[in-house]
């Protein structure tokens, strides 16, 4: 151990490390002996049949033992300090690159349909990613800026989607009339939720929003006459290019512009549509952060009592945050409905809320670029590891825990504070006087 001489930590104690690892292995054995060691399946008669998997159990316990042993031996010895590992010059370059990262990301986003025009699969994935980015931006207003943990965000997404579907079908309005209506209705749903929860503290508020989200879903599921219940609504009108439908008819988009008809036109149009909506959300959020209301949101996140002492009206502050976040969720929902052409309560479960929340949390609560990067990384990874589908939620839940423990400010990005008490030269790695949180 050449590092021992310069290390100030306690000397290497193999016996203690072995003991620690043995305990960890014992705990792992206890945890997994029944759950992994024995599998229950329904046999041909309907009764449960047991199959043993002691090999897998032994492998997991051995892995835990090895991991715990390594950790005990190395943890205090190899202190990986990010600042020391990476020279200052490199972090400085990295941070100057980061300044252009948003612009580069945007440029790439704009180029996607041109570069991948022939790849329908990638275009669909890109639409999905931008939809979740938009949802992330919307939730970011509520969670990241105002600090109100919303576990039922998908309710507004659902309200937007169903509003769009019902209005478009029953009244025959065009997409561009239905979109704002869906947003307004979702914002009303936000106010509806906002009013009663005004007096609640952080975690109670989170649980109430969870309940609200589930109530909306259960109503959609059971109100058969209006929503079609579990069958959902199908045949939702597709968007048109300012009145020109995307079909092969003579008054269609392709014929009007003298192009050869291709179904990809609509996909590209949808992509730019959701990108524009996401950018609108982003722009509004950035502008709002500079307005008194945005400052009030951030103050509310830091300390509600101080907020009240300073004369900020916490009622309107919270309500606007809910309504604003809900409105963008409603826009995203309307887009979702028009893209899918079919919606059902299946799409609006708590899992969706958790996914959007995870995007915001992993991206660094309050950071716009972080949300975009996190949405891309997460949904991209979901697609990459499609064959490991059953493990991906496992990893994603674990990632939420790990981020809270190791990088509570977000994995991807750090939010730059909107206001600084004293202007100071920006230096990478210096965060201790940040006014945020």
């Amino acid at each position, binding site marked *: 151990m050449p590092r021992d001489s310069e290390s100030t930590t306690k000397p290497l104690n193999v016996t203690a490390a072995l003991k620690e690892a043995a305990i960890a292995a014992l*705990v792992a054995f*206890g*945890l997994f*002996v*029944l*759950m*992994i060691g*024995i*599998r*229950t*399946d*329904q046999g041909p008669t*309907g*009764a*449960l049949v*047991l199959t043993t998997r002691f090999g897998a159990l032994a492998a997991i316990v051995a892995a835990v033992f090895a991991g715990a042993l390594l950790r005990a031996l190395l943890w205090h010895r190899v202190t990986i300090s990010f600042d020391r590992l990476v020279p200052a010059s490199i972090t400085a370059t990295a941070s100057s690159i980061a300044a252009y990262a948003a612009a580069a990301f945007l440029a790439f986003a704009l180029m996607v349909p041109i570069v991948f025009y022939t790849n329908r699969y990638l275009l669909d994935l890109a639409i999905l990613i931008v939809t979740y980015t938009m949802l992330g931006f919307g939730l970011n207003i509520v969670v990241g800026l105002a*600090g109100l*943990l919303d*576990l039922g965000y998908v309710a507004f997404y659902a309200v937007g989607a169903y509003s769009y579907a019902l209005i478009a079908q029953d009244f025959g309005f065009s997409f561009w009339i239905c979109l704002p209506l869906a947003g307004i209705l979702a914002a009303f749903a936000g106010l509806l939720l906002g009013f*009663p*929860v005004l*007096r*609640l*503290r*952080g*975690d*109670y508020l*989170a*649980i*109430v929003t*969870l*309940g*609200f989200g*589930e*109530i909306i879903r*259960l*109503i959609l*599921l*059971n109100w058969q006459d209006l929503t079609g219940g579990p069958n959902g609504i199908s045949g939702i009108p597709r968007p048109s290019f300012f009145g020109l439908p995307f079909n092969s008819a003579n008054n269609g988009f392709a014929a009007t512009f003298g192009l050869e008809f291709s179904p990809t036109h609509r996909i590209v149009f949808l992509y730019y549509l959701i990108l524009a909506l996401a950018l609108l959300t982003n722009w509004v959020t950035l502008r709002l952060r500079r307005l008194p209301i945005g400052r009030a949101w951030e103050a509310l996140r830091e*300390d509600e*009592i*101080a907020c009240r002492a300073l004369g900020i009206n916490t009622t309107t502050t919270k309500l606007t945050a809910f309504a604003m976040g809900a409105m963008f969720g409603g826009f995203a929902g309307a887009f979702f409905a028009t893209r899918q052409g079919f919606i059902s309560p299946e799409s609006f479960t*708590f899992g969706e809320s*958790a996914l959007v*929340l995870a995007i915001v*949390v992993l991206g660094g609560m309050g950071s716009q670029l972080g949300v975009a990067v996190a949405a891309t990384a997460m949904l991209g990874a979901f697609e990459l590891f499609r064959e490991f589908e*059953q*493990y991906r*939620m*496992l990893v*994603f*839940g*674990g*990632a*939420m*825990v790990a981020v*809270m*423990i190791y990088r*509570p400010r977000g994995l991807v990005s750090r939010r730059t504070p909107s206001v600084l008490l004293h202007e100071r030269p920006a230096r990478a790695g210096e965060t201790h006087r940040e006014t945020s*949180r």
Partner: protein
Amino acid sequence: MEYFVQQLINGITLGSIYGLIAIGYTMVYGIIGMINFAHGDIFMVGSFLALIAFLGLVALGISSVPLALFIVLLVSMGLTALYGWTVERIAYRPLRRSFRLAPLISAIGMSIVLQNYVQVAQGARVKPLPPLIHGGYTLFEGNDFAVRLSNIQIIVVATTFVLMAGFSFLVARTRLGRNMRACEQDLRMAALVGVDVDRTISLTFVIGAALAAVAGLMFLLYYGVIDFFIGFLAGVKAFTAAVLGGIGSLPGAMLGGLLIGLIETMWSAYFSIEYKDVAAFAILIIVLIFLPTGILGRPEIEKV
């Protein structure tokens, strides 16, 4: 009338199960002030462990049902307690000094992990178990409706009350209980006067998980079918029970559990079964808004 009495019995049975889960929420909230969102999934894990342990014992040739169930109870309590301990150690303890919402977000992550872990390990399909405890008593017969009290209902309610009594004794009379009450009042002060805070919090999670495991076994015996998703709804309802009874209060958790069980059964019996979960969520919201201290809870003073 007979119908009402029958629903009353069913409601109390269901409420006992909710009460057992609610204790885990209320204790953890009382001591460290966090909503252990993963507790419902701990209950689900407990019920799976009980199922697997029972099938394992049958495969080993233990044919006496009471003996098998007793061993199952001990095994599932012990192993589920280990899950509770591990979850606290991995996901919550490092966040003691983190920002306000961090433990809750971490708990949501842990809940997702547990659900999908069980789904991966045991499959997504429901697990049926044929009824093990038969028989019961016909209390009285009306015109065309007999009120029945089945043995399994007696076992569920009796076990719950025995455990509640034992647990109340533990909190009120033992050293561990005193430590827990000290931690509930003031964590830092308790540490100053020599209470091992980390150990006390760990044990709180262990006890909460063990009680959830009992609830899991009861659920399995009573309904005879479980899947990896039962923890979510049961967790939300038990949390509602904890808040309704007054969070931090043990009799409150039991009372809240019984009330929620009764409301749910009566709602399904007299109104609509489709909207029974809406009723549960609506009660949760109404209670949190209008009665945030619950029935037996103390008002909380917000400190700067």
